[in-house]
């Protein structure tokens, strides 16, 4: 089925005005201020910024419960490791649209790339908050201490290069917004190369994040440790990314309804069902990976313990059940059920990443870690800040609506 045309951007092209006046005009707030989202997010962000000021003046210990036994807590476990898995939708959708040429998914590609780009900027950026000496983050780049032997060297470079690739993928949208037609043509010609480069980097750093835990064998509970953690992280990032695209698409359609064409519901339904089909197959493969490793590692004996029940909740409740729900929903065209399954999948990924990095980490150690309230507030601040930037961009740039350049067939 071919994609339906998007509504045109009604604004005049920018060269008619001075760019700086245009930029100043764009910086002005738009839309209503007194919305439930603003009322919740503004106090959280202000509180989070205050906590971060304290954190950078007095150190990590002043606001977090991190210690020598638990140097990685909620910020890395949720914001960085889980957030990067959620951003997996960008590489999957760009592969489907630009490499496999499935035009049906083109209407969502810009929003998905923007979501992926912001996820990396904010969630990988959140790494700075969690480093005891944040200024050292530049070391793998400038060569002060490359750290060739560390998986972090690979992850750091991949994150950085992937953000560049995502910027190139999204840059035609910025050029269209600013009215730079020639620049847009040049940037658009770079897209396919950036997509292929980005997909390669994604497969490597999604698995690289898992590889970080390979050296922690004695610390991670056997039900979650495996030599194949990198493959599990990569395999699970596909349903995570697709589910995130489904959930994000649903929320976006409600929040930015004025930018969407009224007759686009049928196309949207087909896109959601296609994504659900992909998520179903990816979850099925991931579930069998987990089952195969479970058998291979002879882990039956652990199932009788609370850790075993927790593991079953993750693998059966939040991998197999959503997989079956996706299959049923696709077959019977139930969009509501697809969304429920997508949310369950996201919960499963959050649970898996937190189990590996925080909950089942140091499972046999007397030391314990419970995130402080400040850690929760900062985590929410990062999420809300990303949503604010996402909203700012979508309201101004041709992310959901078609641009004049697209209508001219450039």
């Amino acid at each position, binding site marked *: 089925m071919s994609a339906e045309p998007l509504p045109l951007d009604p604004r005049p092209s920018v060269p008619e005005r001075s760019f700086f006046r245009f930029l100043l005009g764009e910086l002005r707030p738009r839309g209503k201020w007194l919305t439930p989202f603003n009322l919740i997010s503004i106090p959280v962000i202000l509180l989070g910024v205050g906590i971060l000021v304290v954190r950078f003046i007095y150190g990590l210990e002043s606001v977090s419960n991190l210690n020598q036994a638990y140097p990685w807590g909620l910020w890395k476990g949720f914001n960085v490791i889980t957030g990067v898995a959620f951003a997996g939708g960008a590489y999957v959708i760009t592969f489907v649209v630009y490499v496999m040429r499935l035009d049906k998914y083109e209407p969502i590609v810009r929003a998905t790339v923007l979501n992926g780009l912001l996820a990396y900027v904010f969630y990988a950026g959140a790494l700075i908050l969690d480093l005891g000496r944040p200024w050292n983050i530049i070391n793998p780049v400038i060569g002060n201490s490359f750290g060739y032997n560390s998986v972090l060297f690979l992850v750091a470079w991949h994150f950085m290069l992937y953000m560049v690739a995502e910027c190139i993928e999204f840059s035609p949208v910025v050029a269209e917004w600013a009215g730079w037609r020639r620049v847009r043509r040049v940037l658009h010609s770079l897209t396919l190369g950036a997509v292929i480069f980005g997909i390669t980097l994604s497969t490597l750093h999604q698995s690289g994040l898992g590889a970080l835990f390979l050296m922690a064998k004695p610390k991670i509970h056997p039900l979650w440790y495996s030599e194949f953690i990198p493959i599990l992280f990569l395999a699970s990032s596909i349903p995570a990314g697709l589910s995130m695209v489904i959930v994000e698409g649903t929320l976006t359609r409600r929040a930015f309804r004025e930018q969407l064409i009224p007759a686009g519901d049928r196309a949207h339904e087909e896109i959601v069902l296609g994504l659900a089909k992909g998520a179903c197959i990816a979850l099925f493969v991931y579930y069998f990976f987990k089952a195969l490793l479970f058998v291979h590692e002879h882990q039956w004996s652990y199932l009788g313990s609370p850790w075993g029940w927790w593991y079953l909740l993750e693998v059966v409740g939040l991998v197999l059940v959503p997989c079956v729900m996706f299959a049923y929903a696709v*077959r019977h065209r139930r969009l509501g059920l697809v969304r429920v399954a997508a949310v369950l999948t996201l919960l499963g990924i959050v649970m898996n990443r937190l189990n590996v990095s925080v909950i089942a980490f140091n499972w046999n150690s007397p030391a314990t870690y419970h995130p402080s309230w400040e850690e929760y507030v900062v985590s929410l601040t990062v999420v809300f800040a990303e949503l604010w930037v996402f909203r700012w961009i979508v309201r101004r740039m041709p992310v959901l609506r078609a641009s004049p350049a697209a209508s001219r067939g450039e």
Partner: protein
Amino acid sequence: METYTYVNIFETKGLEYLLLISFLVLFVVLVRYLRGNADTANRH
């Protein structure tokens, strides 16, 4: 005289092979089930 030896598939690769074969069979079943969606779409 040879005694009977019980091969415990839980301690061998047997269970993994069974799991893999069932995966391949179920994968075909799943894909066929999902493709049935096209018929449902036509009915709508």
